[in-house]
């Protein structure tokens, strides 16, 4: 504490002055001449007591006023528990606020709802920012988003902050931190920071490489572990209900049970006293409308204790037409295609078929058709297939040697127009660059041993897009949109006899892409908050969610091509989606990782930054100035009020006792 601070605070000692004056005034009555003294009754003790009572309010106001002035004098040196930016050498600061808007931030923490606490902290930091400071705002709900690009416009930052709202998204903190660092990397500020306003319920965070903006978690109480259980999925399976429950710990699960809301005859099914994910089975009551499951008891997050029941067709229906004799693995079992789908989507409902259905109704409850080495498609089957795709289905044809064995009247339409030749010769590997959109798995297509390929020519593709090619430029994978669905054509079969491509990770990545496409086109009846729903560009879409209509926007496809419509439900609950006047219900649930992932410790370096920042001083002059003015006004008002009251009383007295005057 410097001399100035001591001197300023020393002014506070003058608080004793009004107290001393009050005591002196209280102790001695004023002596005055008054001719009719003989008519005045004596009341000594009462006089002193009344003096004490009457002046107490004024005394308090004056003492507070002096104390306030003393603190104002010392304000530049006074510390406050409010968050503020600690500046090195007083220079401007560039900081990126990473605000976690994931589901776990909706929990009730030690200082209120975590998300509200994070917003409050962000506002406090913004309040301590000055002209020249650059601010970026990044949201850590999956996917990580940039809410405000780095700007020195503090008002814009405040507006952006006020627009933020809570959601039930998953946490994508690592990507958010990366995005935050990137957003302020190019700024000229010397002092850069990434401020984490998160419960840190995500994977481990690195402090970044040398030269990157350091992390700072100024509100460590956000990462306090909480007890919570949530129903993250409930789907009907015949006359039974499968409920998926996640708990943070055995203590959170102890004594709790799941029940069907409104089903008085059904008994609650207790949870096992363990943390993590568990699946429970309940009886379904068909009389209930819009059934929901409920978790009894209470925890830190009440909102996820209730979950709508998804329709029976929640599981992704996948039809697989593969020849067991050709497309199976040498170790036996189902065809490779079926095994791969089962490995990728455990909840998928696999329907192996020997022949393509002639009736479109047989495609009902299915979203994806995987057709291995088709030997031609009859007109009836083609018609049903086209109908299935046009209604939002996804069909994939893995072309093999049988493309040359199509019987009379059968073609490969609608996948390929015209005759396709099987090129049974040594084929070079796939063009790895054209498969880059598959991700890291694309590198696994090196050194493939292929026995042949279907020779696709551009003229046979009905205007389909080529998504990947062989090394020689021949199409390997094409996509063609048909109605609300899509048709994919792969120039290789899934049989291991014709090459080792099905044994490579890229094959699984490709199948996963088809499953994603099927989900996107068909629209899974149960999805995770923050996951995007896509629709054909020409379709008329209207979505009603738990909090009213959900906005639908247009965007370009990730892999290029035409645009599509998309909507992102961010809150859990039941949604009604109208596609061209055809309504369907979808249920959005929370990612179980939001429940089971416990908050990690604040990185050590971030904690150190926090300590130094808390030592920062806050200029509270404006607030204290207002308080001082208010006190002054209060004293003046009180004095005027008393004076008016006294004069009115005296006037009444004069009239009452001396009407002759």
């Amino acid at each position: 504490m410097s001399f100035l601070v001591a001197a300023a605070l020393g002014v506070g000692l003058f608080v004793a002055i009004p107290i001393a004056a009050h005591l002196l005034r209280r102790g001695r009555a004023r002596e005055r001449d008054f001719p009719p003294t003989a008519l005045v009754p004596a009341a000594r003790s009462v006089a002193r007591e009344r003096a004490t009572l009457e002046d107490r309010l004024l005394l308090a106001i004056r003492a507070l006023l002096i104390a306030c002035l003393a603190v104002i004098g010392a304000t530049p040196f006074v510390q406050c528990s409010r968050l503020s930016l600690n500046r090195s050498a007083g220079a401007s600061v560039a900081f990126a606020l990473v605000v976690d808007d994931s589901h776990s931030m909706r929990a009730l923490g030690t200082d209120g709802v975590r998300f509200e606490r994070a917003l409050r902290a962000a506002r406090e930091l913004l309040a301590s920012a000055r002209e020249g400071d650059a601010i970026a705002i990044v949201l850590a709900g999956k996917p990580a988003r940039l809410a405000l690009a780095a700007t020195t416009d503090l008002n814009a930052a405040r507006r952006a902050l006020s627009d933020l709202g809570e959601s039930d998204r998953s946490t994508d903190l690592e990507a958010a931190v990366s995005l935050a660092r990137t957003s302020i990397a190019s700024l000229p500020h010397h002092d850069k920071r990434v401020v984490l306003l998160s419960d840190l319920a995500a994977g481990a965070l690195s402090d970044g490489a040398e030269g990157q903006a350091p992390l700072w978690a100024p509100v460590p109480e956000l990462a306090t572990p909480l007890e919570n259980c949530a129903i993250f999925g409930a789907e009907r399976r015949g006359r039974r209900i499968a409920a998926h429950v996640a708990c943070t710990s055995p203590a959170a699960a102890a004594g709790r049970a799941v029940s069907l809301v409104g089903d008085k005859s059904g008994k609650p099914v207790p949870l096992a006293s363990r943390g993590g994910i568990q699946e429970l089975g309940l009886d379904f009551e068909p009389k209930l409308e819009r059934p929901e499951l409920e978790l009894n008891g209470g925890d830190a997050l009440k909102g996820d204790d209730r979950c709508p029941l998804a329709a029976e067709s929640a599981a992704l229906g996948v039809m697989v037409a593969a020849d067991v004799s050709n497309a199976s693995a040498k170790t036996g079992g189902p065809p490779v295609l079926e095994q791969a789908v089962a490995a990728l989507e455990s909840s998928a409902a696999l329907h192996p078929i020997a022949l393509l259905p002639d009736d479109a109704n047989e495609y009902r409850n299915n979203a994806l058709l995987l057709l291995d080495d088709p030997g031609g498609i009859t007109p009836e089957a083609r018609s049903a297939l086209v109908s299935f795709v046009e209604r939002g289905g996804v069909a994939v044809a893995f072309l093999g040697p049988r493309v040359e064995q199509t019987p009379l009247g059968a073609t490969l339409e609608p996948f390929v127009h015209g005759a396709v030749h099987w090129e049974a010769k040594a084929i070079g590997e796939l063009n790895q660059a054209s498969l880059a959109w598959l991700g890291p798995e694309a590198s696994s297509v090196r050194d493939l041993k292929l026995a042949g390929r279907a020779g696709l020519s551009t003229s046979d593709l009905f205007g389909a897009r080529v998504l990947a090619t062989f090394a020689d430029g021949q199409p390997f994978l094409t996509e063609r949109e048909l109605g609300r669905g899509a048709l994919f054509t792969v120039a290789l079969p899934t049989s291991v006899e014709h090459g080792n491509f099905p044994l490579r990770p890229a094959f699984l990545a490709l199948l996963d892409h088809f499953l994603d496409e099927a989900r996107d086109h068909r629209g899974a009846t149960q999805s995770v908050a923050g996951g995007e729903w896509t629709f054909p560009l020409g379709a008329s879409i209207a979505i009603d969610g738990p909090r009213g209509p959900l906005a639908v926007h247009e965007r370009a496809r990730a892999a290029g091509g035409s645009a599509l419509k998309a909507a992102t439900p961010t809150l859990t609950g039941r949604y009604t989606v109208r596609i061209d006047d055809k309504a369907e219900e979808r249920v959005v649930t929370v990612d179980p990782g939001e429940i089971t992932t416990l908050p990690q410790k604040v990185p050590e370096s971030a904690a150190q930054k926090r300590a130094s920042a808390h030592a920062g001083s806050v200029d509270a002059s404006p607030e204290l100035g207002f308080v001082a003015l208010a006190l002054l006004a209060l004293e003046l008002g009180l004095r005027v009020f008393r004076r008016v009251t006294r004069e009115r009383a005296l006037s009444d007295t004069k009239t009452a006792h001396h009407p002759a005057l």
Partner: protein
Amino acid sequence: MTEPARALRKALDWGKLAPLRLRAKTVADGVYAGGHRSRRRGAGIEFGGQRSYVPGDDLRFIDRHALLRHGTLLVRQFETETDRTLCLLVDASLSMSYRSEQAPGPKYAYAALIAAALCKIAVGAGDRVSLDWFGGERTVELATAGGREAFERVVGALETAQPSADLKSDLPALERAVARVERRAGRGSTVVVLSDLLDLPEGAEAAIGTLGVRGKTLTVARVLDPSEVTFPFTGPLHLRALEGDTRVETDAAAARPQYLAALEAEASRWSARLLSRGGSLILLDSADDPVKAVRKILDSVGGLA
């Protein structure tokens, strides 16, 4: 003279009030300019109306014209202008020098102004005026006299006097003053006493009350300071009387109702005593308009036609 008394005498700012004669004239002009008429009718110059004849009336005043014209007996009446002596008795005791923050001046200054104005009115009407005191220093008693010179002398005496003297236990001094007034005032005279009626000795009511007998009209104007009327103080008080040794420590809010009640009771007592002697009591506030105060006195005296 005690130290507080000296301090209070300095508060008597004649400079602010002076010239008293000008203010007295202004007040008198504001009240009424002109003479007053006697209520006695009989021999006189100005015709005062007619009334029916009753046996015993002087036959010289029978209206012959009315008898010849109407055949009824009527008696002609005439008004007689009379001079009425105004006897002023002014309290110049130390308590009259009191002045609070609410008052424009001490009570004595207000009483002096009222007295001078009454004098001016009386002199203007042709009446004669006398001036007597109880208490005070450098007081000059003035015998009954009339005319402009009498007014100047009264004003001079009022300006010269200084409030002083503790009459709390000096009843003989008061009785001497009353006796002087009694000697000067004959039947039909008007006696106006200007006092705060505070700190007067026991028996003062009876002594002053004697001025209302034997055909005299007595009006006692009680001049009080605004603070004495309303008791506007707050908080703890240590009060000291100007005459006597009375000291009281009290709380203003607690004492106010009792004080006002006592003041009212005292006024009622004085009023009852004066009423029994044909006199009347008027309460005046030294912060009030002196014109209204003089009008009150004249209304009480019945001097205005």
